[in-house]
Every structure is written in structure tokens, then in C-alpha cells.
């Protein structure tokens, strides 16, 4: 989409610190974070900054969207030069939908929390996915409500104990499985402690045409970082199992190393870039919906923490396509386009006579 290649070294005459749109890394930073020191959300913000810089995304090609929560605050802490909208608790999806219809020229980059998306916002989440609104939908998933001080969210593990919240006896919602069930065509899980994977997935997501969901386990160091919590740093570090090694490749021309046959899956995105998935332990094909769901159900049973690109499918039309919108962003249409002429009114009046 908005990205241009930034991987081929520094063009002549440019400072080494500038990317292809002439910006420094600092142009992609935000206000100082007010989150707790060590919060997973902050490390995701850093990766967003890195990726936006590396992909040389012009800041006006992104809008930052969020709901309410510690996670939803974080858009204030990256990409200061992009417009942002910190909306209501659980209602970011509808706001993004409206914004994306109004102006198809930018890509919404949204940050939500597991409470924001999985509890109050679950209906909007599911319906947004059905519509395939072009956007990146990051869930900074810590299994708790951080901002209200540590209650269980809908993604908390059944049987989990927390000092403040006690015992959780409800089964967790798997936001990736839920996304695939709604035919979302880009579903990935990652871990805030795995900066490289977060980065590559972000790049891929930014280049995907429809809704791209990134469910990133992002530890709440204040309320849910005990070893026995599957949403903690220690647990994630010890248990993350990558489905594949993922590399985002911006352009065709880039040198391709030859891999042994069967060790690599290339997924080409509609705009040209490629996602390279290098096989690790498992044989896994992320283009099969049934297999993806099966994988997640098994992971649930076996309590595996699988990360990577779980599912990709590029066949569904985006909301803009379904709406048959003109290529010109609706907000740029001039008065002649959106106010019919006087004669048109006369004609309707004649019909009504």
C-alpha cells in the first residue's frame, strides 16, 4: 500500500538517517509514554515506529485509531505526525469503518486491548471483520484490564489466579480463532517479547488489502506478569513456539536466496510484496481456513503458545470494493460531485407532483 522500499541502502545525497520519504526515525515517534515501565504495549509502540520508518510510510497515509485502555492510549506514543483518534471503550471498529469509507487513501492502524476488543467491543470486532475494512487491527493482549487495575478480561485463562481479581472460571476467548471464524483474511499471533516477529508481521499487515488482525501477547507488568500466567513475559519467553520464521519482502527484485524445496512458503500480497515463511518444526500452510482453526483448537487443548501468521486469504473483497466506491476519497469529492444540479431537483419535484 503506502510503503516504499527502504531496504536498498541510502540514496545519494541523503543523510543516512533519512528514509525514502525523507524522514528521520524521530519523525515517527510520539509523545513520551505514560505507561508503566516495562509494559509490553510500549515495546509494540517501538516496533510500530521502526516499521513505519523502515517502510518509509508518509505519516499522512496512516491514521491511528484506538478504543480505551492502557493499550488504547499508546497511539499517543508513536507516529506524532499522523492523525489519531482515541475513541470509546470497545467502539473503535465502527469509528474506523466510518473513517475508512470517508477516505480510502490512508490506512487505519488501530490499537486495542483484550478488554476493549474481547469484552465490551466483541460485537463490533466481529462485525468489522465481516466487512473486511482495510486496516491493521492490533490487539495488545495481556489478559487483564490494565487501566482499571487488574480485573480479568475475556482472554484470561480459565483457572488463572490473580492477587486482586481472584480466580477466573470462564473459558478464554481466542481472538484469532474468532477472527478466522468471521473470515478475516489476515490473522496472526505474536508476542511483544519477540520484536523481530512483531516487526515483520506489522510490515505484512500494513501491506495486506483488508483487515489484518495482530493478536500480540503484551504483558501487563503491573497486574499480570507472574510466571504462571500465559500472558506474562516469563511464560512467553519460555513457551513461544513459532510456526515459521517470517520475513516481509518489500519488492520482487530483492535478492532471493535459494532455499531447499519445501522449506519455504511465499505468500505474495496483492500489491507486490511477499511474505516469506520459513519452515521450522511444523509443517503448516496458513492458507487453509479449516487447518488454521484446527491448529488453534489443538493449541488450546495442549496449551501451546503458537505465534506467526495463522491464516491468510486474499480472496474477499474489501468494504470499499463491496461499496463500489470511486477511487477518489469521498472527502475529496467536490461540491459538483456531491450536490446534484438544480435541474435534478426540478425533476424529482415533477415526479412528486
Amino acid at each position, binding site marked *: 500500500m503506502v510503503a516504499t522500499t527502504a531496504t536498498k541502502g541510502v540514496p545519494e545525497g541523503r543523510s543516512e538517517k533519512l528514509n525514502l520519504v525523507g524522514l528521520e526515525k524521530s*519523525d515517527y515517534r510520539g*509523545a513520551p509514554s505514560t505507561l508503566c515501565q516495562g509494559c509490553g504495549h510500549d515495546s509494540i509502540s517501538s516496533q510500530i515506529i521502526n516499521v513505519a520508518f523502515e517502510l518509509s510510510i*508518509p*505519516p*499522512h497515509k496512516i*491514521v*491511528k485509531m484506538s478504543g480505551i485502555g492502557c493499550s488504547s492510549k499508546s*497511539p*499517543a506514543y508513536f507516529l*506524532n*505526525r*499522523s*492523525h*489519531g*483518534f*482515541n*475513541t*470509546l471503550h470497545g*467502539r473503535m*471498529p*465502527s*469509528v*474506523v*469503518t*466510518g*473513517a*475508512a*469509507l*470517508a*477516505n480510502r*487513501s*490512508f490506512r487505519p492502524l488501530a490499537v486495542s486491548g483484550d478488554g476493549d476488543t474481547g469484552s465490551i467491543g466483541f*460485537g*463490533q470486532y466481529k*462485525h468489522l471483520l465481516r*466487512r473486511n475494512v482495510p486496516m491493521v487491527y492490533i490487539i495488545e493482549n495481556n489478559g487483564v484490564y490494565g487501566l482499571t487495575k487488574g480485573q480479568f478480561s475475556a482472554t484470561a485463562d480459565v483457572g488463572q489466579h490473580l492477587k486482586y481479581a481472584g480466580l477466573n472460571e470462564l473459558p478464554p476467548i481466542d481472538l484469532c480463532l474468532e477472527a478466522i471464524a468471521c473470515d478475516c483474511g489476515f490473522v496472526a499471533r505474536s508476542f511483544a517479547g519477540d520484536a523481530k516477529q512483531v516487526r515483520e508481521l506489522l510490515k505484512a499487515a500494513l501491506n495486506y488489502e483488508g483487515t489484518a488482525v495482530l493478536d500480540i501477547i503484551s504483558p501487563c507488568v503491573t497486574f499480570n506478569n507472574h510466571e504462571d500466567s500465559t500472558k506474562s513475559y516469563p511464560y512467553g519467553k519460555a513457551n513461544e513456539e513459532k510456526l515459521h520464521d517470517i520475513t516481509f519482502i518489500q519488492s520482487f527484485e530483492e535478492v532471493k536466496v535459494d532455499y531447499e524445496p519445501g522449506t519455504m512458503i511465499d505468500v505474495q500480497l496483492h500489491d507486490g510484496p511477499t511474505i516469506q515463511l520459513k519452515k521450522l518444526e511444523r509443517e503448516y500452510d496458513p492458507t487453509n481456513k479449516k487447518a488454521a482453526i484446527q491448529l488453534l483448537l489443538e493449541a488450546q487443548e495442549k496449551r501451546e503458545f503458537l505465534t506467526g501468521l495463522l491464516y491468510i486469504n486474499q480472496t474477499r473483497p474489501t*468494504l*470499499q470494493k463491496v*461499496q*463500489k*466506491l*470511486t*477511487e*477518489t*476519497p*469521498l*472527502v475529496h*469529492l467536490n*461540491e459538483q*460531485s*456531491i*450536490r*446534484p444540479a*438544480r435541474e*435534478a*431537483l426540478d425533476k*424529482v*419535484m415533477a415526479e*412528486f*407532483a
Partner: protein
Amino acid sequence: MGMLDVLEETAPKQAKGQDEVINDFTMVIATVNGSGSQTANSLLARTAFKMGVPVSSKNLFPSNISGLPTWYTIRLSKHGYTARRDDSEILVAFNPATAEEDLASLPAGGVCIYPADMKFQVPRDDVTLYALPVKDIVKRSEVDPKLRDLVGNMVYVGALAVLLGLDIAELEAGLNHHFKGKARAVELNMNIIHMTVEWARENLVKSDPYRIERMDSTKGLIMVDGNTAGAIGAIFGGVTVGAWYPITPSTSLFDALAEYLPKLRPSEADGGTSYAIVQAEDELAAIGMVMGAGWAGARAMTSTSGPGISLMTEFAGLGYFAEIPGVIWDIQRVGPSTGLPTRTSQGDILAAYYLGHGDTKHVVLFPGTMKECFEFGWRAFDLAERLQTPIFVLSDLDLGMNTWMSEPFDYPEKPMDRGKVLTEEDLNRLGSWGRYEDVDGDGITYRTLPGNKHPLSAYFTRGTGHNPRAVYSERPDDWEQNLARLEKKHNTARGLVPKPVVERNEAAEIGIISLGSTDPAIQEARDLLKAGGVETSYLRLRALPLEDSLKDFIGQHKRLYVIEVNSQGQMHTLVQLHMPERAADIKSIAHLDGLPLTASFVECEILEREKI
């Protein structure tokens, strides 16, 4: 029999001489919903309209899909009155389930036409009864059995044509209009009408005084419902994003958008559309989409009714506080709660004005005519973008779903007002800006739109406290100053919203204040009162916040009555608060039973309070 001699050949036999009542009576057509009587009923109304007779019709329908009683009233008034009346002189009793009650409520001297195979338990001899051989005619017409019920309604059309003197050619033209020229359908229905007319001329002896005669009072007028008018207004207002969730009686507004947008805004050069209409999963999502689109710079709207307004509360507060344009139509129905979904009300005035927790006050428009439905349809966008705030348009079921006569709509006189938006060039010129800095002193600040390429353009929108530079702030002074500015903006809005329509009567001590769809009843009531020697002035509010001309009007009158269709007297409270020093002289006439007001109700209420 002298009179009969002059009857034309289209007229039926007439029994006894009587003072004729011409173009000044009401018919009520009682049927079962889902039976297709709408076609027949609107045809009758249209035919009168086309014969130049002022007409108004109201459909009283149940909240289900088929099988329950519906009453459709058509009032003809040579004086041009269009309010509902309590009585109907002519009853078409085509619903066996209510026939008895319907007959009982017919005034003495009235007329009842009914299917011959229906029997009344309690007959009346003070009304004229005409029994129609509906089954027989339909059977003889050899129409497809599946269509029998449908076309059966044309029997009362044919009978009324003969009894009242409707122009058969206009009926046919009306059917052509209705079926958009589909010859088969027109023929089928006309066939029944012709058969009935023939039968009626042979068999009916007219023994009632009611007649329709051609007049010249509807020339140049149109017929339209308020939801269609509003939708077309929005289209001429440049709506680009519409998000909605179905709910009676608001659904037909978005239906009309879907119908007229493709006609009026054919595709752009690349074949794509200049608008997006989304059916949301609920009203929270619908207004969320409107807020997202409005934030991004689009003219966005939604339409709903009471329950949807309730669900939009949190977003309305965000829109007010984060200053996001958007248009929200509320086609009011009877509440609280699910209430009476198919009955009219003006019960959401306070809900809309104060919608949201904390301190919110919204701009609310009250169309009272079809022209205003159209005008506020586009003007709401100008106001929303000028004031950067959600604008509520409070119509109601009576305006929205009934068909009204109207003058044709006026094309917007001025180009769109897109409000204070800074472009890249503006930012270059200015060098710096603050999203919430009150540069002009009117409380309205400048915004940039996402997508703006200027390095300074971006800002962060939030529902939390912020300073003039849109930076998060919990500072007491920032909060207070921001709220004070929003209050200033609300005062600016006072000067921008449509002014009240005032009909000043220098002789009057009484001032009537009302709004919206009560207008016909009040106009007529004022004539009745005047005839009884009671002079009144009249101010019709068209918006909140209230403004100075209301104060002037109150100042000019000794006693004021705020008339509205709800049970709490909602607008009354706002008017009292607008002029506390006269609050005690401002009385409430509030009434809600699901039906539009009648002139006689208004007359009686005022007379009673005036102790005349």
C-alpha cells in the same frame, strides 16, 4: 327528486335531497395490514389531490407485519386544513375484526361502506350504509386467486368514486403513477374499479351528502412524505457516508437514500459511487461510523428512532466533546422504551438536547413541514461542519411516514459551508496552529483532516481532557476553559440555527409556542379560536438552542402556551428556563396518545385554561 336530474351520468342514484358537503370531510378506511390496501388508500388521496382538493392522509398501522387492524384516514378540506380530525364522516369498514367498533364511532349522519358478506351485530339507523358485493365482483373479474385480496380493495375505490364523484381518469392516472407505468397491474386494478363503478351506478342509491368536486387549490404542489424529503435533502446536502440500523419509523429514510442516491448522484468518472451506505450491526455502530467519517471530513449521517437514540448516548457525548460533525435524524415514535413503534410522538426533545452524561447540550432541529424536512436535510450538514458537532434532526412518524402536500422544495441558495478546515496551504501560511484554540472568538476552532500532508497538521482526537493544542491534560484550568469555550460555541449556534417562524397578532394576549408536526392542528385551532373571539399569536420553534426572538415573543404576550406531543411537556421546560422571569406565565399543553394532535384538542385546551 329535483336534484337528481342534474346529476351527470357518472353519478349514482340519489335518494333524498340534502345539503351537500363538498370537499370538507374525512374518510377512514379500516382494513387489515399486509392486505395491500395501501395502494387503494393512497390512490384515493392522490386522486383528490389531483382534482385540486387539499388532502391529507394518515396511516394508523400496528406494529406487526400482517393481519392486524389498520386505519387510514383521508381528510379533504377546501380550506386547506391538514390536521387530523377526531371524527371521520365516511367509514370504509373492510376489517371484520374492528367493524363493530368502527361503526359505533361513526358520527350520526355518517356513511359506512362495507363488504356485503359482513354483518353488523349492532346496526345503526342514523348513518348511511352501503353494502358492496366485494367477493362477487372480484370473482367475476377472474383475477388470479392469489391476487384476490389485493385487488379486492379496488372495490371500495370504485364505490367511493361513484358515491363521491371521483374522476375515473384521475384514478387511472394515479394507478399509472403508483405502478410506474406497469400496464398489467394498472389494468387489473382498473378492471375492478370499472366493474364496481358499473355495479354502483346500477345499484347504489346515494343517500348521503358528501361529494368531491374539482377545485384549484393544489396546483403546483407536490405530495411527499417527510422521510423521503429528508433523504433527498441529505443528498442535496452532499451526504457521502450513511450508516444506519433498521427501526420503525425511521427505516424509510434510508430506503429513500438507497433509492434516490443512485438516481441523483450517478457514478463518478471511474464508475465508482460518491457515497457509501452501510447497514450497521446496531445503533452504537451506526453512530460510530458517522463519527469516524465525520472526523475524517465526510458528510455523514444516520437515522433512527428513540431506542436507537438511547444507544447513541455515549457517542453523542464524544461527538460533542471531541467536536466531530455528524447528522443524526430521530424519527420520533412513542416512548419510553420500545413503546408504540408505529405511533407518533415528540418525546425525545430532552433526550436529544442533553444526550450524554456530564455536561452536554446539543444542537437540535425541528422540521415542521415537508419543505423543512428537505431543507434541514442539507442544512444540518452545513451546521454540523460549521459547528463541528453532532446535529440532531427531530422529525416524527407523522411527518416522516405520512404523505403530505407541499410546495416544491427550494434548491439550496448558497454553496455548502464546509466549516473551518485548514489545508496544507493554510498551515504553510500560519506556521502553527492549535486544534482547540479559539482564534475567532466564536468558540469554534480550526481542524485539519487526516490525510493532510503538512507536517504540522496531525493532532490526536480524544474524549479525555485536552488543552488548546489537543494535548492530554488533567489541569483544572484547561478543563474549565475548554468547557467555557464549548458553551460559547453553543451560544454561537443560537445565532446559526433556523429562527422560529412567528405569526404575530397584535391583538393577541395569548402566545402559542410549538414545534414540528403540530403545525396543522395549531393553524386550524387558531382559526377556530379567532372565530370564537380568541386572538392568538403563534411561534413555531425550529431549533435548539433557543434564541432571542423567542424572548421577544414571550415579552409581547401575557399568557403563553407551549404545545407539544409528549407527556412531560419537555419543550415547555426549556422555554421556561429560557426566560425564568416569565416562567410562571408559560403553561404547558402536552398530550401524547400516539395520534397526531387535532385542532379541536388544541382549541379546547386553550379555552379551558383561558376559562372561556
